[in-house]
């Protein structure tokens, strides 16, 4: 019931206690509808697990013990080995939990705060948090065998992803067993630990690459739809050119040529080549919206341009964009996995695709545990995003809603 109706009613009839509920914003309604579907719930559940792994990875799988008493001193090698990124993620998660419990801000602003926290704290983190630059992973095991350690508490999985077990050379390529739940890989590293830590890379590439795509798409598409004319014509050709370029091949070429492999480059390329569909959506929406009455009225009323764009047009244009975003994240994750699979990913950083490549490179025969588990992780992640996307699409599709 709208506020106006309630007001009318309250004026015309005896004063009733009328509970007036503020209309939910489109965004919040969309989220609720989406999450009502079981598919989205499953997807969100898995993504939640992944996020948990991404943030708390160092606490779950780490060669550095949580607590250690050696030669009379207590120390926490694990805490000392935390990187600035670890700390920032933990901070963001902490802020998110606090906000959620306290329900102090609406979800939109709350989200912004959570995202802003690591950015604000970043300089401090990079200055203060100094993990040791060089790690000798076999140190602890050697110390234990030499009897130098009085008490020690390891994480559940006492292996870091880069711990290649140089002191236990026969552990290499071992099938899943009690010590290594998913076995070890070609270099001797624990597969479970690698899969766990790789979730961070996968999620971050997914978000950031898609973020770049969406931002670029909104920018270009919006400008095209709003102004039209020559800019539209030129941008349309640019979009066609970018679409005509074979994306995977372009990614492979640039990765192969890059001087230093880093994660930001991959994000950037995946992001920059993926903006076209968002641009098209926004352009189409803007073109039609521009003709609509309320926009025409706003223009006639002399509203400043930015207000028209941001408050009138953009929220309406966002719907198809948001639905595609989830699919975009899924495909970004797939691209990263494929690039790593082809050997173009980061070295000595955990990655699902890189593990999968080991299963393929022959010589050792078929190593099923390296083929199955990392691929399963990729599959579940992509599946989750696709499920959420499908649920959102069903929720937001006006045609289907009418039917239901």
């Amino acid at each position, binding site marked *: 019931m709208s506020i106006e109706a309630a007001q009318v009613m309250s004026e015309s009839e005896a004063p009733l206690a009328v509970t007036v509920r503020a209309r939910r914003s489109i965004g919040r309604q969309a989220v609720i509808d989406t999450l009502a579907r079981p598919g989205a719930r499953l997807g969100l559940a898995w993504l939640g697990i992944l996020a948990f792994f991404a943030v708390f990875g160092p606490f779950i799988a780490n060669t550095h013990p949580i607590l250690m008493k050696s030669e009379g001193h207590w120390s926490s090698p694990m805490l000392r080995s935390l990187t600035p990124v670890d700390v920032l993620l933990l901070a963001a998660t902490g802020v998110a939990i606090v906000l959620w419990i306290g329900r102090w801000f609406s979800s939109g602003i709350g989200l912004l705060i959570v995202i802003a926290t690591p950015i604000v704290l970043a300089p401090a983190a990079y200055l203060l948090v100094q993990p040791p630059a060089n790690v000798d992973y*076999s140190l602890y095991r050697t110390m234990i065998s030499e009897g130098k350690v009085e008490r020690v508490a390891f994480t559940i999985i006492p292996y870091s992803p880069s711990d290649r077990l140089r002191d236990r050379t026969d552990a290499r390529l071992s099938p899943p067993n009690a010590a290594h739940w998913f076995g070890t890989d070609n270099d001797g590293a624990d597969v479970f630990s690698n899969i766990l830590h790789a979730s961070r890379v996968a999620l971050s590439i997914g978000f950031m690459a898609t973020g770049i795509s969406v931002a670029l798409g909104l920018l270009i598409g919006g400008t095209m739809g709003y102004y039209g004319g020559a800019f539209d014509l030129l941008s349309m050709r640019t979009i066609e050119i970018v679409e005509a370029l074979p994306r995977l091949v372009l990614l492979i070429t640039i990765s192969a040529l890059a001087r230093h492999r880093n994660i930001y480059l991959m994000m950037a390329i995946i992001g920059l080549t993926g903006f076209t569909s968002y641009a098209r959506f926004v352009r189409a929406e803007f073109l039609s919206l521009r003709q609509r009455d309320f926009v025409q009225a706003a223009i006639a009323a002399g509203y400043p341009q930015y207000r028209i764009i941001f408050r009138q047009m953009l929220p309406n244009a966002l719907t198809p964009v948001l639905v595609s975003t989830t699919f975009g994240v899924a495909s970004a994750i797939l691209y990263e996995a494929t690039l790593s699979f082809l050997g173009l990913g980061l070295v000595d950083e955990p990655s699902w695709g890189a593990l999968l490549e080991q299963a393929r490179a022959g010589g050792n025969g078929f190593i099923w545990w390296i083929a199955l588990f990392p691929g399963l992780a990729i599959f579940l992640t992509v599946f989750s995003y696709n499920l959420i996307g499908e649920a959102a699409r069903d929720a937001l599709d006006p045609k289907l809603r009418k039917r239901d």
Partner: protein
Amino acid sequence: MQNRFGFKDLILTVLLVLLIAVVLLGMKQLDRQWSALQTLQDQGKEQTRLLASISRTLDDMSSNGIAVSRGPTTQSAQSGVAPGHDPYFADLKEAEAKPDFARGDYLIDNLQTKIGGTLTPYITRDLYGIWVLEKIFDFLLTQDPNTFDYIPALARSFQVSSDGLAFTFQLRRGVRFSDGEPMTADDVVFSYELMMNPKIKAPGIRSYFEKFKGVEKTGDYEVVFHLKEPYYNTLNVFSNLYIIPKHFYSKYGEEEINQNPGLVMGTGPYKLRDPTSWRPGQKIELVRNEMYWGEAPAFDKIIFNEVMEEAAQETMFRNGELDVYRCPVPTYARLIKDPSISSRSTGYAIESFLNGYYFIAWNQKQGGKSSIFTDKRVRTALTMMTDRDGICQQVYQGYAKPVHGPFWNGSPQEAPGLKPLPYDPQAARKLLAEVGFEDRDGSGVLKNEDGTPLRFRLLYGTGSEFTQRIVLFIKDNFAKAGVIMEPDPQQWSVLQQRADHRDFEALFMGWGGGDVEADPYQEFDSSQIADAGDNFCSYSNPKLDQLIREARISLDKDRRMKMWQECDRILAEDQPYTFLLSRDETRFIDNRIHNVHRTKAELNLVDTWPNPIPWYVPKPMQKYTQP
């Protein structure tokens, strides 16, 4: 009633399409049968022609090894082939003397790549293409795989002038190309001139002959090569000179020779059935050359498959479809324990100078500035921090050996009694402390006075799982000792560029082997620093330069060896590279192939050397027969 496209119509359409498809496929089958028939007919024609000319061959062969009084121009007593004992065929003759020797059967080999390029000699620089060509062509001389003596092949004898500037070869008579035409000195001259022609796409091979001035025909069966300056290894260079028929190749223009992938006609024991028609993608099947001037080898055919995938190769070998299986080390380690493999084949892990070596090059001058690697102590310390034995054991499962210099293990060029640097991280740290790098703050990282850690990037090429594993192993070695090494993988084209521009800190690479007596000039002489030469690390030692240059032009073997040994000592002292290891070549050979044994080079059949094949299959074990 409308004329609707009903279900019946759909069925009819589908049936019609299927019918057309079957007819087309039937036509295709007939076509293939037809071409198979055609091939058989051609074979028949060829056989008739050969029968007619075999009598000619018999006549000519008799003039080779046995003194025949036909006239004053026939062979006289010169160094080289003594009647009845031809060192070129010694191995094969020994095999023939064995009781179970038999001719027949095929040898099925595998090139681990598809020859995408060309098989035309000189144009191809594909390593695998060379394997094929070694069976089709002969050279003036070759080397004994055990003694490394030079054996005349197509030459009957040869002389080297005392100043090393003139090489005279007397050619055998009665040598015929696979089409029956005789080989003469004209062909040798033609071969040389074709190769030296800058329009011919053979820059690699040409580079070997840069010291040559020209060739001179001094008789129908004699040539003299003239050099600009003496070089100790010149005889080796002749193993790149394919002797090709002038009458065949002169029919083609230069561009056509460059482009046509299948112009292959030689004097060797085998040939391609058609010397002009081979195209990439076609099977490489070598058949016996009936015109062959020498002792016929045992195999009727040599078939080279082009299977790249490891799994497929292994399957082929298990099924008995492959006779020579060159497998990577992990496969070898796995299969050598597999009874089903070891019962029917023999595994060989071959240590050989042909395998080259891997190294880390420390760049002493990057971007014009001296780097931390300019100090010899830093390089020495880094070598002592590298567990080379560990790499051989853990990455190569024992099928590799550490090397300590550019000369192969056991080479006479190695300095006797030279002790290799041990794996001693403690001693390495002491050495680095002298330079100023110490663990000043207990962080486990070696830093100098300014607090700069000892940290660098190791550039290496992608594409090999072994390389990455070695790099990560070394990274862990260094990490333990307090040095931070960051892997810097780069794809090959970029790596080459960066190496040429000296744009790297440390470089992991390998040099291919091939020379019995290696020449360290290209890598370590200071003249090779400029102009994108191969002295990547800007290493310069004037004493070494002098020794190398003197040794290169010295024709006195003993004197030369002493100089090489001194070079070895200097390089060990200076450590411009950290010499890492030389891996073994691992392969399995089917047991039905007899007379396989090891030599100092490799096996008694070296892929890249044109020696006659001394292997055979006894009659009862023969698997393949001529159709």
